[in-house]
């Protein structure tokens, strides 16, 4: 402490320790928070096709609209949310299939009251067999990954999902 450098050293070390303690406090204040949010999903139209050059039927569902308010999730320990809509269904070959159809990244500071209409699915919905045709129970769930400043990376499923049956026949009209 008798030279400038030793004073600067102890000052810097003490500031870093305080900063680490603050970051831990930030984590503790948000660690036990419930980040579930009600979600409202409607599916408008389901198209099922059997595509030649791939080995399965293809479905492109127009996600009618999705409304949810994400602002309760955001607090001072959240940098961004990674939302994804996944479909869960069971086939004969697999008891549980999960396919991600759509995703979106919501950064801090963006509009958190999302009201998305006429969304198309972002990714193809392939089954690894013919399990989609006449499947009576396909559940759409919106989940999100909370990316924090410090701490754990929770994976939260939104409360509110929609189950829908798929058609028994393939589409024959060319729509694209």
């Amino acid at each position, binding site marked *: *402490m*008798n*030279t*400038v450098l030793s*004073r*600067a050293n*102890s*000052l*810097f070390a*003490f*500031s870093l320790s*305080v*900063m680490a*303690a*603050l*970051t831990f*406090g*930030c984590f503790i*204040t948000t660690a036990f928070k419930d980040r579930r949010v009600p979600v409202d999903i409607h599916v408008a139209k389901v198209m099922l096709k059997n595509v030649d050059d791939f080995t399965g039927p293809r479905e492109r569902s127009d996600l009618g609209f999705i409304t949810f308010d994400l602002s309760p999730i*955001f*607090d*001072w*320990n959240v940098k961004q949310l990674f939302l994804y809509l996944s479909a869960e269904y069971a086939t004969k070959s697999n008891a549980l299939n999960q396919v991600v159809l759509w995703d979106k990244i919501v950064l801090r500071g963006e509009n958190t009251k999302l009201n998305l209409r006429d969304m198309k699915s972002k990714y193809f919905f392939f089954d690894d067999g013919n399990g989609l045709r006449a499947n009576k129970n396909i559940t759409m769930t919106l989940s999100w990954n909370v990316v924090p*400043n410090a701490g754990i990376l929770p994976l939260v499923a939104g409360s509110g999902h929609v189950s829908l049956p798929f058609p028994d026949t393939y589409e024959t009209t060319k729509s694209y």
Partner: protein
Amino acid sequence: MLSIFKSIPTHMDYKGQKLAEQIFQGIILISAVIGFVYGLIIEQFGWTVYIVLGGFAISCVLTLPPWPMYRQNPLAWQPALPETSGEPSQKPQESLKKKKHK
């Protein structure tokens, strides 16, 4: 170049060092508490970091340079003794003896 830096007086006396340590610890802790509460209220951790950095800068300005308030209790050294004529004459004799043994 180094001699120029070393010629700048930077030392503090012992009580000044203790005072400087207490000052910077107090400033940083207070800014940490303020920043934590403020960040918790406005839900932005970035502001917490900025406020702590501000406290760091203030305490740098206050405690890094040896301000006069850290030099108010200088150590009381013994007054310099006048040089005795005996010691310098003994040392050359010892060296002479060593040379003789060789």
